[in-house]
């Protein structure tokens, strides 16, 4: 479970995250939706321990992601924005490396990797070096390494970025399976349809603040709009960054 309480973070004069609070529960997919530069990535970065909040708290399963970062790091799996993989290693070696960093070894690690190969449909390239992989293949490797230690909480920063239709569909299936298995999934996106399709809970962020929070239906009702897209535009108060 992920809890965010009154989180604030500024870079010089820019208030990137300005008092954001929300909860993402286990067994649910929660989406952070907002235009580019709204503060989604900054919020996620504070959750996955690489940024220190100015004030407020980011809790993962009750552990403070800044003060107890090592504990938090063991219980999260993260797909960072534009995540890169090691091109001179094979896909398997890439995943193996991160498995080992989480303390997995031997047969146990091998079985887990084979499981992921099945789920993510990676048989064709699992033992190939990653140089020249398509964006879809790269994302699968990056996702596999994020999931190799079966993290309770999964954080995905714009996971469908650069993926084609088929790859996006594949990714959606994986995310839904994670939900069924009881994981807490938190993903960010600036694509409204994607969030509407996948998420049980939506947190709409604009200019570093939460402007709406609830199920897709809640949000439609809240703004008296039948169409979620119109609701979104109304919530963020402008059409800026919708592209």
């Amino acid at each position: 479970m992920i809890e965010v309480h009154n989180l604030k973070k500024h870079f010089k004069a820019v208030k990137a995250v300005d008092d954001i609070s929300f909860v993402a529960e286990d067994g649910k997919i929660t989406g952070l939706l907002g235009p580019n530069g709204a503060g989604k990535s900054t919020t996620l970065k504070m959750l996955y321990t690489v940024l220190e909040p100015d004030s407020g708290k980011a809790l993962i399963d009750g552990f403070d992601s800044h003060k107890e970062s090592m504990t938090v790091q063991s219980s999260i799996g993260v797909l960072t924005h534009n995540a890169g993989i090691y091109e001179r290693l094979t896909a398997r070696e890439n995943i193996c490396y991160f498995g080992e960093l989480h303390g997995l070894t031997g047969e146990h690690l091998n079985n887990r990797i084979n499981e992921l190969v099945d789920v993510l449909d990676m048989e064709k390239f699992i033992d190939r070096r990653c140089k020249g992989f398509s964006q879809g293949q790269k994302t699968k490797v990056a996702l596999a390494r994020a999931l190799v230690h079966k993290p309770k909480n999964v954080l995905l920063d714009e996971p469908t970025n650069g993926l084609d239709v088929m790859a996006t569909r594949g990714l959606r299936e994986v995310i839904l399976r994670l939900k069924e298995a009881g994981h807490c999934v938190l993903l960010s996106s600036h694509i409204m349809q994607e969030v509407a399709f996948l998420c049980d809970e939506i947190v709409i962020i604009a200019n570093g603040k939460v402007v709406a929070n609830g199920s897709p239906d809640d949000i439609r009702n809240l703004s008296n709009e039948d169409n979620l897209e119109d609701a979104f535009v109304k919530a963020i108060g402008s059409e800026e960054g919708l592209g």
Partner: protein
Amino acid sequence: MKNTAATRSNQLRMIWIIFRKEVIDNFRDRRTLNTILGATILVPLLLFSFLWFAEKTIKDETDSISAEAIQLAVVGAEHAPNLMNWLEQSNFAINDAPKDYEQAVRDGEERMILKITEDYPKRFATGETAPLLLIHDSSIVGLEKIGYQSLQRAIYTYGNRISSLRLQARGVSPKVIHSIQLNVSDVAPSELRNTQVLTMMPYLIIIFIMLGGMYLAIDTTAGERENGSLETLLIQPASRKSIVLAKLLATMLFSALTLFFVLLSLAFSFKFLPIESFEITLSATKIAVILMINLPFVFLGCSLMVFLASFTKSYKEAQSYLSLMAIVPSMPLILLSFLSPEPSLSNMWIPSLSQGLIVIETLKGEHIDLALILLSMVSSALVALLFVFMTIKLYERERILG
């Protein structure tokens, strides 16, 4: 901190995992291997061409003195027929000088001109000091200079012989004017004679230590950030300290490997290069000693490069900074060629200079005080630790990802 021993063993395991990945990753990088391979091939080539050139110069000198007659223009040759005979026997070809002989030397038409003044015969005949004027251009160097030096020697010898004859004619032994006879005996061991090659060695060693680690220092820091995998790595349950140490160790491994191959290649070159004037040997023991005493510098060079590369924004930027940095540690070595200092407390704390001194002394086969060696190793290691500390601090800050 529930259990410090467990934490420590966990940290060591993390360092090992990251270290092993960086080593495998970079062994598959052609650039890294090219550096090692290049060093191994380049070093003997450099050495060979250097020695070959040195030997050729000496050979040319000898040839030009013994074989071909040196052209000599003389003004007033008719005043000193005996001297002209002597010079011709000493392998000079006497020519008439052009009218404006000073200008001719200045313009480089003539290498040198000997002028015999009109009162030379009179003064020579009466036993007075007879003047000769030698016009040359002292700005000319190299082989051209040899003719001038041989001419001076020839004229001095002629003068001495005349003096001796005159003394004998007056019933005085010529020994009277030779009050001292200076005999020179060179007792330097054969290894000491190759000073030119010796002063090259520290440069080669220091530069290849830097080059050997450079790609890893960049690839594991600026490269990993540019690749977009650094953030993911930093999220793993490994301390930033473990991450920095692992990357530094991998860098040091490649740097030390490069040094090792350079030394091996040097040992083979010393042994098999067809150069006669050269007698340095590099035994297995010497290789081990040189490798050992340079390890603190490997540590220092690599920690410096990892530190700098961590600061840069991109692979390209890191590359341009570090290429410059590779030269900096070789600067104290310039002192070696100019001052050739002896190892002492006042210079053995200086990184790179102290290693250079130990390398030279080791190659010479000379003994160095163990305390001085320790001073060199400890001071370099301390500076290295400072860079390691600063790098870890840098990695613990948020901006490492920015």
